């Protein structure tokens, strides 16, 4: 549990950090909350030569409203998200998701940017980010890029982020009236990461018909994804229990679920369906103004 030697930098500004990652390229690793990186380094599964600690770049920690969107700085901790008044009012799905992450210590250190950059297949945020149609903002010395959530997660621990880029913020469009969202998670019993996690966001139109729906699934496959087949089944229809159950069965269509000592692929498929249905039920209840 002892990492290999590395050189440590603690830049105070984003520019300085960008210069450092540009200079050291592949040999550098960014350090945010350290709760994914340090365990890997201690096991020597990761041995970067340079560690660039971005934790002191204050400007990246804010959670604010800007141009009709919610903007969350990459260094906002899970606890910042969980406790944000602004998010509780405008986007309660994120605090609900953040509260499911790890324990208090993890939530006090771990960051939104770190979780999304690391892209653990069982991390919680990715499901919510997908369901919210969020945008991920990546900054490098050559400028800024905006990546839609639906395109961001590529493979196991792999995202659209390129070497030299720092994830600086996440932008979340405001949802309209009659919308509701929920995150439901079956914990892996040892790590408490998601064995199957489903985030659902639903907007109801006239006659209680589902006007728009987005379902993000995490923990099931190599990366988090949108359950589009299930979404399509629901659009424009009335949210009857039978329909929800049928749609939920489709959240793993075309997906090759993971299997490990905690759950087989078959079980993950079944659990994803149950948790997606429960998330949908709660989101719909909330969209209709009910508690769930």
């Amino acid at each position, binding site marked *: *549990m002892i990492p290999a*030697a590395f050189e440590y930098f603690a830049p105070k500004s984003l520019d300085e950090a960008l210069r450092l990652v540009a200079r050291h390229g592949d040999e550098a690793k960014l350090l945010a909350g350290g709760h994914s990186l340090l365990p890997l380094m201690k096991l020597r599964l990761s041995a970067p030569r340079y560690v660039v600690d971005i934790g002191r770049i204050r400007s990246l920690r804010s959670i604010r409203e800007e141009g009709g969107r919610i903007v969350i700085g990459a260094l906002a901790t899970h606890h910042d998200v969980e406790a944000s008044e602004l998010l509780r009012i405008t986007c309660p799905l994120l605090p609900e998701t953040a509260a499911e992450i790890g324990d208090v210590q993890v939530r006090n250190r771990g960051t939104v940017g770190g979780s999304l950059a690391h892209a653990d297949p069982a991390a919680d945020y990715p499901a919510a980010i997908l369901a919210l149609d969020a945008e991920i903002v990546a900054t490098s010395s050559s400028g800024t890029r905006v990546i839609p959530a639906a395109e961001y997660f590529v493979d196991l621990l792999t995202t659209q982020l390129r070497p030299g880029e720092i994830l600086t913020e996440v932008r979340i469009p405001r949802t309209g009236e009659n919308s509701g969202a929920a995150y439901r998670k*079956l914990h892996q019993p*040892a790590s408490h990461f998601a064995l199957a996690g489903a985030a659902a966001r639903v907007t109801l139109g006239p006659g209680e018909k589902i006007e728009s729906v987005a379902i993000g699934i995490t923990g099931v496959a190599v990366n988090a994804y949108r359950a589009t087949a299930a979404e399509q089944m629901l659009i424009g229809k009335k949210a009857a229990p039978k329909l929800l159950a049928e749609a939920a069965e489709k959240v793993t269509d075309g997906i090759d679920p993971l299997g490990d000592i905690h759950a087989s692929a078959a079980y993950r498929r*079944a659990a994803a369906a149950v948790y997606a249905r429960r998330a949908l039920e709660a989101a719909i209840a909330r969209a209709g103004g009910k508690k769930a």
Partner: protein
Amino acid sequence: MATAAKATKYVGKPIKRKEDPRLVQGIAHYVDDLKLVGMLHMGIVRSPYAHARIRSIDTTKARSAPGVVSIVTAEDVDGAIGPVPCGAMIPDMKPAPRPVLATGEARFVGEGVAAVVASDPYALQDAMELVEVDYEPLPVVVDPEKALRKDSPRVHDVHADNAAYRWELEGGDIKKAFKQADRVIKVHLTNQRLIPVAMEGRAVLAQYDRGDNRITLWSASQIPHILRTQIAAMLNFPEYGVYVIVPEVGGGFGSKLNVYSEEALACYLAMKIEKPVKWTEGRRENFLATIHGRDQIADMEFAVKRDGTVLGLRAHFIADLGAYFQLLTPLIPTLTGLMCVGPYKIPNVRAEITGVFTNKMSTDAYRGAGRPEATYFLERGMQAVATELKIDPAELRRKNFPKAKEFPYATATGLIYDSANYQGTLDLALKKSEYKKLRREQAAARKSKTGRLMGIGLGSYVEICALGPSSAMPSGGWESATVRIEPTGRVRVLTGSSPHGQGEETSFSQIAADLLGVTMDDVIIVHGDTSAVPYGIGTFGSRSLAVGGTAMYRAIEKLRDKLLKIAGLVLSEDPANLVLRNKQIVSKRDPKKSMSFADAVGAAYTAKALPPGVEPGLEATHFYEPTNFTFSFGTHIAVVDVDPETGDVKLRKYIAADDCGNVINPLLVEGQLQGGIVQSVGQAYFEEAVYDDQGQLLSGELADYAIPRASDLPWIETYNTVTPTPVNPLGAKGVGEAGTIGATPTLVNAVLDALAPLGVRNIDMPLKRERVWKAIREATAGPSGRPRRAK
């Protein structure tokens, strides 16, 4: 508790632990906190293969790495360090001694291959990666049933097969019992391999003083003296020159009731280098290379009468011992055999154990050590009997319990149960759980359309504890104490027990203070330092209070008698009329005749007027040899709800009714029960050491090995009855392991009870959601996975 019960300022009271202030403030010292001048760090290069020939080890690169001081392999220590000792002998057992470093072959993943010493932990880790070992992989056997097949790879070439031993026990007339039976009910059950997961891993610090030719070994151990003797033997070093010190220990659960290769290696290297050498285990190492527990498979047949009377039990146990013998490896399963009839009158029994070698870490004592296995198998069997015969599980138990007046009760396995009232704890558990109401609630849930699966589980147990009479123990079952009343009137108790979280500093102080009429603060309990404490056996097998506490009690009696004699002379009073109370020695007859405790103590030391035949000073030693084990018992009840869609088990209520004889401190007893029950929740629902077929430990860290968390648990309600033991003057039995013994079957029975209407009869532990889900699916086979209600 004849004497202590009369003066109970402390005994029986829920007194907070004396040891906690230093622990919660972080000012207690564990081995890893200790730093000595010039201290070096040791690391062990471990085999990544479960079975491999070691062709060669090249340490050239590692030796030239910065900070490296020494590297040794099996070749270097050959003849200098003996193998890891095994203290258990079973007739015709095949020996499997473990060399301190793999010699010729490595036989499990994690076996040490080389020891590296470096100036600091960072240099050490870098250097360890440079040790090049050329392995030739050999065939691996992981599954104990497969290991018994003729064509199985052999773990030890020198042995004809992997059957380490066969052990048998028979009592009564088993053939007749099965002839007379109306039904024979069979179960096939497994008790999975567990990892003890003490909060503190193992840690060792060794120092050698050439001038005095003295080795000092600090180790997180449960058995300081046995460790001292064994280290002396392994190193062929005079025992008087070995000092073992056990500072604060962060839990053991049996995993530190052992002698490990790292302890001997650290001593050897400290001697060789003449600098202190420290080794602190990492969590992954702890998972791979500290003993595991359980890992048994049982086939049992119950010969029963239609009314539920159990006439006989035939049992065969397969015990996976791992690759080598640690201190008690072969012995542990025999406790399963001995306890296989549990709290029931089963007059005819035949038990057989086959111990098996596999390419895995050794199993050994883990909290309960053989008894949780016995109890699990038996109680699952009793649940099967109840289900098959359609008898309420509570009534089935009541029917087969011996009555309170039948104690002492001789079992068909050859034990004498000291005292009990099994009906008493059963009734208490039923009452506190409102059992009938629960059954009504369950009936309603089963009728309702919600598909709610509610289960009520029962488990009764008797545990053999306070280990034990020396005749039945591998290396002595007595315990020692020296008590010194110092000239200022303070009391120093030196005990051979070696508490590591149990709270004996508190309970022993309570007893000592009451016996001498002083305050608990006047008493200090010293343990774990072999240069200070008389030879002792240590802490395991729920023995410290009942055996070690009795040794102290007897030693204090000697001092008390002496003090009263001295006071009798001063007060001109018959010592028989004098009592110790509130730091005074007072005559019961004439309260005016009194003197202070301090003056009497002073008189013993100034020695100016001592009664004839009384020696000066105030020190007494007692080596207490128990005449029998003690047998704690109880009944537990668990209530669960099973999510029919996911198989998730929610434990919603837990009631424990236990009897450990006289209770010295109810807080400590409750703490032991709560902790033990929680560990049972781990075994029942979450924990399993999973090896793949190549012998790789897949559940190799805490992110993959699930231990229960507070959020997984309801409030555990504990109640007790009091049936004192006649075996010792305290009337106290043991309670350290009761929780892990009684609770596991209770928790599993609850889930099976929930699924009984679906026809599910068995799910192997741990009851992971997927296993429960699969059992529900297979039983219902509905397309949506929602269970159909069976008739």
